[in-house]
C-alpha cells in the first residue's frame, strides 16, 4: 500500500470535490489514489522542459456564433426536473459560505 497521499490530503480533496465520504471510504481512497499516483510517477518524473502542453487535440481557433436569440426552454419543463422549487425558482437550503 502506498503512503503517497495522506489521510489529511484525502479529506482536503474530498472537501474540494464536495463529497461527504465516511471514514472507510477515506481510508480506502488514500490507498487507492496512492497506487494510481505511484503508477503516474513515470509521467511526473519525465523531464519535459520546453514541451508545450496540449489542451486540445485539434488546432481549432475562433469558433464563434452570431449574437442572435435562440429558443429558450419552457420553464415548467425545467423546474419539473428540480428536487425543490418555489415561486418559479430553484429552492436550496441556506447558504453559509461566500462564493
Amino acid at each position, binding site marked *: 500500500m502506498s503512503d503517497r497521499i495522506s489521510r489529511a490530503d484525502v479529506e482536503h480533496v474530498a472537501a474540494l470535490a464536495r463529497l461527504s465520504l465516511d471514514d472507510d471510504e477515506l481510508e480506502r481512497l488514500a490507498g487507492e489514489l496512492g497506487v494510481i499516483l505511484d503508477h503516474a510517477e513515470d509521467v511526473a518524473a519525465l523531464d519535459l522542459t520546453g514541451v508545450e502542453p496540449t489542451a486540445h487535440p485539434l488546432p481549432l481557433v475562433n*469558433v464563434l456564433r452570431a*449574437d442572435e436569440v435562440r429558443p429558450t*426552454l419552457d420553464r415548467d419543463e425545467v423546474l419539473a426536473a428540480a428536487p425543490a422549487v418555489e415561486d418559479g425558482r430553484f*429552492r436550496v437550503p*441556506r447558504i*453559509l459560505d461566500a462564493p
Partner: protein
Amino acid sequence: MNDAVRYEPVIGLEVHCELATTTKLFCGCPNEFGSEPNTNVCPICLGLPGSLPVLNERVVEFALRFAHALQFDVPERSIFARKNYFYPDMPKDYQVSQYEHPILADGVIDVDGTVVRIERAHLEEDTGKTLHMGGGGRIHDAEYSLVDYNRAGVPLMEIVSRPDITSAEQARGYVSELRAVLAALGVSDVKMEEGSMRVDANVSVRLVGVEELGTKVEVKNMNSLRSLGRAIDHEIERQIAMCEAGERIAQETRHWDEDDGVTHGMRSKEGSSDYRYFPEPDLVPVAPTDAQRALARDSVPELPAAHRARLMGEWGITEADARVLLDVSGLPGYAEAAVLALGAGSAKDIVNWCTGDVLAHLNETGLSPEVLPLAPDGLAELVDLVADGTLSRGLAKDVLGEALREPKRPKQIVEERGLAQESDEGALATVLDEVLVANAEAVDAYRAGDDKKRKKTRGFLMGEAMKATRGSGNPQTLNRLLDERLGG
C-alpha cells in the same frame, strides 16, 4: 499627528461589467434584465448534462473595441479556463473565465490627469441570482434561498487595475471614467445600481516611505459610486486603526454594509480559494484576426476625454456639466442632435435641460434617450421658445414635463394650453395697473416700509401680477414695469 498623513492607501479595483449583447456569452438566450425568473434559460446556460458552449462573436468585437479605447495589447490568442468552486448560483459549479491568457493585457486610463494602469481585462460568464428567504433577506440569517438562472451566462468583462490608486476619491474617478468609456463605446449599460457594473476594491495601507505592500483586503458589495467611496474610506480607516493598535490585518474578503456604513468579514471555507483552473476543453482559443481588429478600430467613437474637451470648447459648458452629460448612455448624442436643430437658443441651454429635467426623467422612468417621445429637435424647439421670449423658464419646465411623457411637440402644447408668454408692454402695463389699484394698501405699505418690508411687499405685488397674467407674463418686462411704478 494625523494618521492619514503617516499612512498611504494602496488601492486596486476589479470592475465587472455586463456586456450589452443581445444574447448570453455561450448560448442564444436573451441577455435581458427583469424577465420572469428562469425563463431566459436553455440547456447550455443551465449547465444541463451534455450541453456545450459556443462563444458569442459580439463579445470579442466589444473587447477589441475596448482594447483600442484604452490602448490594451491584444495577445495573439487567449483561452478560456474553468474556475472550479461549488455555489448554487453557478449551474455547472465552475465558472468559465479567463485565467493565464486574458483577451486584453496592459491598458491605461487617464483619471483627472493621473495615469492608472490596467493589468488585464478578461471575459467570463455571470452567475445566477439568489434570493435569501427569511432572516430579513440576509444571506447568513436566511432559512433557505431561491435561485433564478436568467443572469447565468450573461457576458461579463472583468477589468483589473494595477494598485495605482491612492484614495477613495481617485477610485471613484477611475470608475467614473471607465464607465464613461464603456458607455461611449456602447459595450455596456454600466448601471451600478442595477448590477450591470460591479466593483470590488483591493485595499491595503502602508506607512509612507515603505516600499512593501500591506496585507490586502478585498471589499465587495458596493452598489453605487457613493458607496464605493464610503466603503474604501471606511476600510482605510479600519486598517489604519488596526495598524496603530499593533494588530495584524488578515487577508480576507469583506462585505460592505450600506446601512451600517461598515465592512464585515465573510466566512469562507478552508481551501475554497483553490479554484483548480484548467483550460476549458469545450472551447477553442480566441485568436483575433486582422479583419476583426480593423473592424473594432474603425468602430471606436470619440472617447469621453476628447468629447468633453470638444463640448467645453464648442458649447462653453463646464467640465462638470460635460461629465454629467457623458455619463449617461445616449444622452450626449441626444444633446448634439438637439444643438444641430437649434435656432435662437444656445447649446448651453440644451445641456442645462439635458442634465436637469431630461436626466431626472430618464432616471425616474429607466428609459434611454433614444426612446423618449420628445425627439432632440423637439428639445431644440423648446429652447428656442424660451430664447425668443415666447415661454418663461418656469413655463418651459411644465411644457417639457408634458413633452417627455406625451408624443406632443412643445409648440403644440403651448398652443393647446394657451401658454405663450405675454411680452407686449402695453398689455402688461394695463394688467399691472389694475393690480396696483386693487392692492393700494400694499402699495402704501411699500412706500412707508424699510428695506426688508419693501422686499417682501414687492414680491407679493409681483406674484399678484403674474397671477393676473395666468403665468404668461414675461417676468423681465413685468419687473421693469413694476419698478418704474414703485419709483425704483
